[in-house]
């Protein structure tokens, strides 16, 4: 029987990610990994794209993983895990190894997923490998020092979209990767956040049991890049959810479903003002960008409500 999704029950299982990894204090990525892996009772085998999570958890000769884990390169976590899964399926079918109900997972940051790894991800899910790809989206190339990615929000200061005298941070909105993955018509796609841990865990369970390729986009605060205190990770993540910058939803066999409606939809400004990467937007000459962002958040939220039949 599946472990009940309560912290006390989950804590009875073996911790799959050990302490001693070298992610920054207050990192969102390891919270996501811990919550998701705790939700899966079955054995897991993991592929990891190059990125913070990968480098910080496996600095030779140390590994923080108590489960089988492979890192290949930056852009190919999806194709790597597709090879692992194909090997498993082949050898089980031939009777060379026993069926063990292994759940295959890949973790990649937004750089490795939205950008350089998008092709490999698209190919792997189209082929229908049974695996869950998890994008921990912190909205920039944090591992190499906070460069912009296509997941970076409009106006955010990064080291390649700096807020300068003429250009006020990133000039484009975030790519809607979750919708792109939903357009692949794979059995399960979801957007989640660790602040809503039970939702994240339930989605994880659905994803690994969907019988095909699954994708989850999970918001992962990076206090170094977002510029907030280390203890504010969860609170600021939830603000992104409550202002509908990061709505929680799932697309199960093509059916869009809203997972969470904020009691009161907060202005996006409430989320922005808590992060140093948006500080320059509050200067009079840049404030219009907050309005532009609010409009885009509203437009996407309304669109999502229509897709979910909740408009």
């Amino acid at each position: 029987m599946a472990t009940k999704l309560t912290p006390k029950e989950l804590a009875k299982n073996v911790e799959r990610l050990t302490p001693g990894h070298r992610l920054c204090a207050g990192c969102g990525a390891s919270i996501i990994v811990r919550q998701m892996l705790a939700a899966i009772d079955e054995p897991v085998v993991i592929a990891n794209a190059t990125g913070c999570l990968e480098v910080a958890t496996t600095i030779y000769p140390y590994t923080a993983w108590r489960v089988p884990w492979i890192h290949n390169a930056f852009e190919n976590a999806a194709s790597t895990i597709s090879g692992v899964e194909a090997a498993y399926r082949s050898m089980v079918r031939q009777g060379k190894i026993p069926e063990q109900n292994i759940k295959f997972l890949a973790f990649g940051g937004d750089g490795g997923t939205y950008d350089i790894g998008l092709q490999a991800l698209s190919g792997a899910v189209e082929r229908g490998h049974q695996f869950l790809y998890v994008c921990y989206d912190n909205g920039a190339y944090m591992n190499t020092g906070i460069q912009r990615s296509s997941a970076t929000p409009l106006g955010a200061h990064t080291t390649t979209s700096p807020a300068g005298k003429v250009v006020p941070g990133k000039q484009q909105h975030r790519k809607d990767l979750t919708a792109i993955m939903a357009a692949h018509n794979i059995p399960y796609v979801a957007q989640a956040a660790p602040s809503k841990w039970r939702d994240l865990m339930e989605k994880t369970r659905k994803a690994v049991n969907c019988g095909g390729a699954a994708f989850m986009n999970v918001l992962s605060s990076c206090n170094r890049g977002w510029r907030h205190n280390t203890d504010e990770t969860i609170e600021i993540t939830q603000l992104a959810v409550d202002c509908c910058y990061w709505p929680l939803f799932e697309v199960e066999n093509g059916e869009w479903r809203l997972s969470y409606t904020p009691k009161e939809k907060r202005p996006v400004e409430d989320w922005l003002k808590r992060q140093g990467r948006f500080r320059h937007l509050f200067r009079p000459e840049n404030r219009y960008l907050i309005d532009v962002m609010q409009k885009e958040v509203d437009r996407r939220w309304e669109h999502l409500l229509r897709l979910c039949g909740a408009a």
Partner: protein
Amino acid sequence: MAQLKGWKEIPIGGMILEAGNAVEYLTGGWRAFRPVRGEAACTHCFQCWLFCPDSCILVDAENEKMLGFNLEHCKGCGICAAVCPVNAQVRRKAEQELDRDDPRLCIRIIEEGQAEE
């Protein structure tokens, strides 16, 4: 740092065969702040366990008790205190804004090196 090994003494291909040996690498020295369990009654809700990025909340899982912090590895981020529902309740009841090291809190955050009491 462990004694460095020669090329004949390590597995080929960069493989690491001791799963989870990162526990031997102590990250507690990174800490500028330290979590301390305060006087307020811990309800053993395990919220801190759920959100710790470093798997550093020590629990007696069988008896469902929160025991304390793994200070060999804890990096002092303070998330445990931020997500603690008892802390939230204490803050709501308090007349004024409470400091992170207020003794009324269930988990309080103090500067590393500062005495706990």
